């Protein structure tokens, strides 16, 4: 039953992805100044939104891990699995943001990269979570999860800075599309629909791979616990 539900969700996700792609390429009109290259926006912005959501999941998981690690170890392991899954899938989406952004910038600005506040803070965010994943991958010992949780909480502090950077500082990055004053927002209904469908599609896709990553980590935790128990039994 669980597998059937997962298969059904996966099928819905694939359909949504294709529908979002069709909306972005075939339905949404060309933007007047940037023309076709503006369509990168339909993948770039939803990826950034989903990355922020997953870093928030990492934050929640890290806080819960620190809160439960002494009193409720099983609940702490669950929170840690969510934190790790959130960070890893968040890094995947953030990588998409950091690659598609410069591709748009090359055509719109004539340069691949500039050290403006939005771009720099996003790169720092990516580096923080990559270091989180490297810590999880290569460090050993029972304090790794605690150290990673603390790093995850500090990493999450950068998310609001990234979000507010083009409001607080003058940046080359375009002004906020939503919530950036009276002139912000998408005026064309077809563009708005294409954007909305792609946000939904990438969100559902992201949640699906987040659930998969979480399951992989839970299985890894169970195997580690069994192996530790086996070593104890041998003694």
């Amino acid at each position, binding site marked *: 039953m669980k597998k059937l539900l997962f298969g059904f969700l*996966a099928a819905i996700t*694939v359909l949504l992805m*294709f529908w979002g*792609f069709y909306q972005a*390429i075939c339905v949404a009109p060309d933007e007047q100044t*940037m*023309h*076709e*290259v503006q*369509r*990168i926006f339909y*993948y*770039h912005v939803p*990826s950034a939104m989903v990355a922020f959501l997953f870093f928030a999941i990492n934050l929640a998981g890290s806080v819960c891990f620190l809160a439960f690690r002494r009193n409720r170890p099983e609940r702490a392991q669950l929170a840690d699995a969510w934190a790790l899954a959130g960070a890893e*899938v968040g890094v*995947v989406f953030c*990588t*998409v943001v950091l*690659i*598609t952004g410069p*591709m*748009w910038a*090359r*055509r719109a600005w004539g340069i691949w990269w500039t050290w403006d506040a939005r771009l720099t803070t996003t790169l720092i965010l990516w580096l923080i979570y990559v270091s989180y994943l490297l810590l999880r991958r290569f460090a050993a010992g029972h304090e790794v999860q605690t150290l990673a949780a603390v790093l995850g909480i500090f990493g999450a502090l950068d998310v609001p800075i990234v979000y507010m950077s083009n409001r607080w500082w003058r940046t080359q990055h375009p002004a906020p599309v939503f919530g950036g004053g009276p002139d912000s927002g998408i005026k064309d209904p077809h563009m708005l629909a294409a954007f909305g469908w792609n946000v939904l599609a990438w969100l559902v*896709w992201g949640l699906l*791979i987040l659930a*998969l*990553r979480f*399951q*992989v980590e839970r*299985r*890894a935790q*169970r*195997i580690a616990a069994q192996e530790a128990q086996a070593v104890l039994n041998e003694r």
Partner: protein
Amino acid sequence: MKKNAFSLLLVLVALALAICFWRWDQVGLGQMDASARLNHEFTVAAYAVTWLIQLGYLALLGRKWRSMKRRHDR
């Protein structure tokens, strides 16, 4: 069989996407000026890279899942 279903689905999605990208890349290239052609190619590249990263990660997750399952069964 079950193991292969995931790989098969992944390959089918990748193939369908490759066809979509190829068709999209060919559309109207003949009538485009140099700037429009560059815009078109950058857009196609950005979309293709996005899919490559996402499907690559999914494939990596599938491999991890399979190796965990093998370890668990042992």
